[in-house]
């Protein structure tokens, strides 16, 4: 369990005149809980997006589960995300036309080995675990912020990913709800050995992590 699930090597990223990341290097151990902290605008979301293959670094290399993702085509990246990486966004990014249970099943829409009923059962089980057993058929508009965030967490876990990237999963929630959601997230990941990387502003959350990474001045600080 000690091999690294994520290996970031000296990446740089510039947006216009601003160099957001100036040579970040870090390794994340499999099945560990890592938090990323830093000031607003320091590049936390950018780093997460790059690990998820949604954004390319200007320089440097990122390996995920032993694969150098800069060599992958966009289809291969999609495949990697579908199979191995769950992403929870800073905004919930649920599909407004779909119900909770349908949103959760969305990433599994192409899993050929999963039959429709199997997929549905898994989605029901996940929604049950996040405490939304009575909200299967609600649209996002009919759910509270905390409920939406929990649907997003269930959605990120539907394909049983090895890695879960969570960008401020509690940022939009009040303190109590935020704590509950985080507990849930941690519980789910610990149970299944998922590598969890979560961005947070909350020092209390950061304190519970196996490891805290602070981004400052475009660099990773211990």
């Amino acid at each position, binding site marked *: 369990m000690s091999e690294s699930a994520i290996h970031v090597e000296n990446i740089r990223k510039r947006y216009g005149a601003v160099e957001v990341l100036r040579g970040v290097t870090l390794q994340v151990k499999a099945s560990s809980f890592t938090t990323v902290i830093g000031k607003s605008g320091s590049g936390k*979301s*950018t780093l997460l*997006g790059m690990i*998820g293959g*949604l*954004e390319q670094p200007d320089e440097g290399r990122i390996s995920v589960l032993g694969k150098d993702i800069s060599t992958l085509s*966009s*289809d291969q990246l*999609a*495949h990697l*995300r*579908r*199979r191995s*990486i769950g*992403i929870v*966004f*800073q*905004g919930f*990014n649920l*599909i*407004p*036309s*779909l119900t909770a*249970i*349908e949103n959760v*099943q*969305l*990433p599994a*829409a*192409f899993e050929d080995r999963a039959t*429709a009923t199997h*997929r*549905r059962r898994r*989605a029901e089980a996940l929604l049950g675990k996040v405490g939304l057993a009575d909200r299967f058929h609600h649209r996002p508009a009919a759910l509270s912020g905390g409920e939406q965030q929990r649907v997003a967490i269930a*959605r990120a876990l539907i*394909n049983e990913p090895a890695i879960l990237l969570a960008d401020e999963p509690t940022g939009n929630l009040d303190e109590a709800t935020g704590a509950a959601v985080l507990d849930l997230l941690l519980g789910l990941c610990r149970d299944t050995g998922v590598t969890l990387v979560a961005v947070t502003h909350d020092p209390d959350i950061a304190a519970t992590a196996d490891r805290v990474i602070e981004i400052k001045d475009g660099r990773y600080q211990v």
Partner: protein
Amino acid sequence: MDRWRYVARELRHRSGRSLATAAGIAVAVLAAVLLAALANSYSRALEAPMKTVGADVIVQLTGDIPPKLEGLVFPHPNALLPAKAVAGIRKEPGVVSVTRAVYLWELAPDHYQSVLGLEAGETGLDGLNGRLLQGRPLRAGDHAALLDSDFAGKNGLKAGDDIVVGGDRLPVAGIVDAARGGKVVRADVYLPLAVSQALAAAAPQVQALYAFGADDANMLLVKADRRRMEAVVERIKQLVGKKAIVSSEISFRETLESALFLSERMGLVLSLVVAVFAVAFVLRATASAVNERRREMAVLQALGWRWRDVHRQVLLENTVLALTGTLAGLALAAFAAWAIGNIEVTMEMPWDLSSTPHFIPEAAVDRRQSVTVPPQLAWQVLAAAGLGGIFAGAISALAALSTRRPQPWSLLRSE
């Protein structure tokens, strides 16, 4: 949750936009189908006058006015056709058959009748016999006549009575309803060609102008290979000479189209404009729908959908809309065709083909022919419009998607 469920949800979620897009396609399909049906009706209406005669080409030659307007005369557009020209036309490639005819007017101070002598044949006596209402058919060797039903009615004549033509008393073999079919080359009295030739040869006002022999004719009804129609018409004009009057579908088109079809043309142009605007509307609506969903498409990509999966989803949605719109359009077109019932096209016959002398006052007004054609929805048109509608939907989706392939990250990071 599968693709189809997602398609249904998405379309329902944006029901206003879905409806507008489907309606746009329905309008385009409706306009296109009606356009084709109208165009088809008009061109069938143009063929109708010639069809009622049974000939493809009618050949006449402009003649002179006889010194006295009395007894049997040739109508003004019917001069003696040179036998050489007739023989030449017969040999022309593309000419299937030639039926000779003699067309006469009999003028008396108190009455008038038009007389047409015909050879045997499909465009001649046989065709006429096919429209028999009472009595018996007329054969080439008979010394008898067939009467037009209107004429017979007006004069109280029936099969078995006698009629006098140019002083020759003939038994009435039967009554035909040729007049009802059209106003082209119809007559009050129909005779076998030989009888009419003998009458013309003996008529002083004919002989005053032409050396009409016992085997001459002043009108030809020609059946031609329709694919070679234009060439045949050209050759006939050359053979008969400058004064030839050659009527065919082509000449009908030329003389009737300009004046008569102006209003209908407007209808066609309008349908075309509607179809074009509807398609443009669908294109725009799809483009903005796709634009609105860029973020959603980025989310799907982040969840592991390949771009081609996203692509297919949008294509599927639009195709479903297009299919719905197309079916609605076709149904509306069928309903519209049924509601319109028949399209009536009224045409003014060229003077040359009018069966009554223009100087007879009661006849002068009646050179118009109304042709009623049901709007025809050919399956090819329906299939083409159907495919076109679905194609328009798919193409607009592809066009909207091709403009930009979104970079998912730039859309996802902003809340």
